[in-house]
């Protein structure tokens, strides 16, 4: 079995509830990411998406399970994993450029001042903010702040980029513009990205695969939906592809009708679905070997 770039195995998070019992937000989360993949995760509020992302970032600890990246267990935060938070998390006393310099300096402490500055400016230009270099975050709009935050994350060239609903606080127009920018940057850099979103169209535009989570408590990653659309993509033309309609319909159907009861495969890994080719979307046909295990399991249960 070939090792994936990132492997998440049996993750769960348990909180004590107020009555002295326990509340399992999510359990037995299993998935793997390949290098260069863009994966979005969608699920209703309260299913623990952010917690999963924070565990990957090393900012939070799971109750059980582990995360392995590059054959090394993830314990605590690290520069090889960059994070973009929903609320931007820029340091308000630093200018836009200095926020990026701060990160670049932390990433490459041995670099000269000029090299750090030049590198940082390049990434700020990439998000179209070279004119606002010397402005403080309070003098920038929400969209501009999030661009700085994205530039900061890309500038450190992490092996895995974690985006926690990066456009959640932006208005629809701004969101569209920055999505386009993110597409452009990603086509250039081919970063491995794991992103949380609530927006089905955003997920289709950006990702190679979309993880669908069932509702919490005891939430699971039930399905892994392939986004079979060619790169490079564009927000203006992507909906013309017939596959786009199928994928979109499949995702909406999941979120509206099936997210309460959906379950992953028997072995805990998400069901792999490709709505662009599968005709029977609501009942994916299991592969042969899986049918066998399923029957065995049924036989044991009976």
């Amino acid at each position, binding site marked *: 079995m070939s090792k994936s770039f990132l492997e998440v195995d049996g993750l769960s998070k348990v909180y004590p509830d107020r009555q002295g019992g326990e509340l399992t937000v999510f359990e037995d989360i299993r998935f793997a990411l390949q290098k260069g993949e863009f994966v979005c995760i969608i699920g209703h509020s309260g299913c623990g998406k952010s917690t999963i992302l924070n565990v990957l970032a090393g900012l939070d600890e799971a109750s059980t399970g582990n995360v392995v990246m590059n054959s090394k267990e993830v314990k605590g935060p690290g*520069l090889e994993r960059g994070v973009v938070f929903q609320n931007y998390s820029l340091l308000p006393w630093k200018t836009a450029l200095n926020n990026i310099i701060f990160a670049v300096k*932390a990433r490459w402490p041995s670099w000269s001042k000029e090299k750090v500055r030049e590198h940082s400016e390049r990434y700020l230009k990439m998000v179209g903010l070279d004119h606002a270099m010397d402005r403080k975050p309070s003098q920038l709009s929400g969209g501009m702040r999030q661009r700085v935050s994205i530039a900061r994350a890309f500038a450190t060239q992490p092996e895995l980029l974690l985006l926690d609903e990066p456009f959640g606080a932006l208005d629809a127009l701004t969101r569209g513009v920055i999505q386009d920018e993110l597409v452009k940057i990603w086509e250039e850099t081919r970063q491995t990205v794991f992103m949380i979103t609530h927006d089905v169209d955003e997920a289709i535009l950006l990702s190679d695969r979309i993880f669908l989570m069932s509702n919490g408590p005891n939430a699971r990653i039930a399905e892994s939906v392939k986004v079979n659309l060619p790169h490079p993509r564009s927000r203006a033309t992507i909906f013309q592809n017939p596959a786009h309609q199928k994928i979109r319909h499949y995702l909406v159907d999941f979120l509206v009708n099936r997210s309460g009861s959906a379950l992953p495969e028997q072995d805990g890994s998400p069901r792999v679905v490709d709505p662009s080719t599968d005709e029977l979307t609501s009942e994916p046909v299991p592969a042969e070997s899986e049918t066998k295990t399923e029957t065995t399991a049924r036989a044991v249960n009976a």
Partner: protein
Amino acid sequence: MASLNVRAALLSVSFLILALGMWEMATQPPAATEATSEYELLMGVSGSESRVPPPSAVIKVAWAELSNPFYDAGANDKGIGIQLAYSVYRVLTGYLAAMAIALPLGFLIGMSPLMYKALNPYIQVLRPISPLAWMPLALFIIQDSDASAIFVIFICSIWPMLLNTAFGVANVRSDWVNVARTHELNPFKTAITVILPAAAPTILTGMRISIGIAWLVIVAAEMLVGGTGIGYYVWNEWNNLDLASVIFSILMIGVVGMLLDLALGKAQKLVEYKE
């Protein structure tokens, strides 16, 4: 219509003139009359020494003092500038010593809930003690009146700085700390590059409160220890029954206190940030 500032300035000046005018009128010596009996004369009732001096007398003293603020004519006769300099020196020494302790300790308490819980009871007991209550103990242990005054300043200015530093550090937004964590900053670098600038406005607020309290306390402390300083000067002039000098030095205490506060206010502006 003139701008708000101009109108406010005009109003301020007219209040001043009004107040000085009323003060001047109220303190005019009564015209000497025949009615004063020999007995009253003997008792010194009509003597003008026993009344509050008018502002004109105070201005005269101020002019004389300020035209030569640094003269030194012996232990009990030094210029107002020298006296103020002694007080400012004591305040700054005690204040800087307090800073040297309060800022690191505040960081420690703010960053460690364990230290906060362990030290909080002592802080709560020590904080409400009037700084002058420490004076006898300080005099006994230190055996030096000047150092004791500085110690009193130290003890009174440490609390606001300590508590504000701890509060500011403990309440740095977790997002910013997470930024430091995801960039693998070590604890020392995190403290310097993220927590310090984030907590600086709160810390400076504590420092501003402290300097205000220190300046209040130094006057009382110097009245007790004597020798030099603006507090001693006020008390000495009272003993001389020179009320014009007392009033003048009261005003000078206000002016210097305001300057100290202004300086800290400027520093506060420097570290402020908008979210």
